[in-house]
C-alpha cells in the first residue's frame, strides 16, 4: 500500500512527482509522474496527465494516462483521455472517452 494519500478535502494544483505510490481521494489539477502505483478513489476528481506503473481508477479522470503496468478502470470510473498501457481491465459500468493503446 502506498503511504502518500491526498485526502478528501484537499485541492492540489501543480506537479506531483516521485518514486512512491499514491492514493488520491481529493481534487488534483496538473501533472502526476510517479514510479509506483496510483489509486484514484471514488469521489476524487483528477484533471491531469498520469504517468505511473499501475493505475487503478474509481473516480473521475480528465487527462492522458500512460502506464508501465496494469490499468484498471473500475465500475464507477469516468475517464476522458487517451490510455497507453501494456495491460488493461475495464469493468462493466466504466465510462470512457478516448483512445486505448495496448502493448507499447
Amino acid at each position: 500500500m502506498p503511504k502518500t494519500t491526498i485526502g478528501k478535502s484537499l485541492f492540489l494544483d501543480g506537479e506531483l512527482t516521485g518514486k512512491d505510490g499514491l492514493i488520491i481521494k481529493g481534487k488534483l489539477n496538473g501533472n502526476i509522474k510517479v514510479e509506483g502505483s496510483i489509486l484514484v478513489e471514488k469521489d476524487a476528481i483528477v484533471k491531469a496527465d498520469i504517468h505511473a506503473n499501475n493505475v487503478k481508477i474509481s473516480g473521475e479522470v480528465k487527462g492522458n494516462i500512460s502506464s508501465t503496468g496494469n490499468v484498471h478502470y473500475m465500475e464507477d470510473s469516468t475517464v476522458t483521455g487517451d490510455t497507453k498501457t501494456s495491460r488493461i481491465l475495464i469493468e462493466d459500468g466504466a465510462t470512457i472517452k478516448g483512445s486505448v493503446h495496448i502493448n507499447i
Partner: protein
Amino acid sequence: MNKKVQENITTLHKDISFNGKLVGDEDIIISGRLEGVLQTSQNLTIEKSGIVKADIKSINLVLSGTLVGNVNSKGTVIINKSGRMVGDIKSDKIIINAGAQYKGTILTKGSSKVRSTQKISPKKNSRLKTKR
C-alpha cells in the same frame, strides 16, 4: 478508531515531491518535498525528512524538517530540535526547542499590542504640533 483517524489525514511520503498549490481542510503530514503554497484549516506536521519551500497557513504547525517560507498560524508553532526554518512566523504561541535552527521574524499577539502603543505615540506628536 485508527482507520477513521487515518481517513482524514493527508500524507506526502518521503519519495514524493509536489510543486504547486495545496489547499485543504484536514491534517497534513509532509515527509517529502513541497514547493509553492500550503493552506489547511487543520494541523500541519513536517517530518524530519520533509523539505518545504512554501508560505504556510494552518492551525498548529509542528516542524521537525526543513522549512523555507512564512508561516501564518492560528494555534501553536513548534520547531523541534531537528527542525530548520528560514522565514517569518505569525502565531499566538511559538515554541522553539533547543537545537533548532531558525532565522526570521516572529510576530505574536503580544507584539501586536506593542504596535498599538506605538500608534498612540504619533498622536502625542500631533498634539505638540498643534501647540506650536
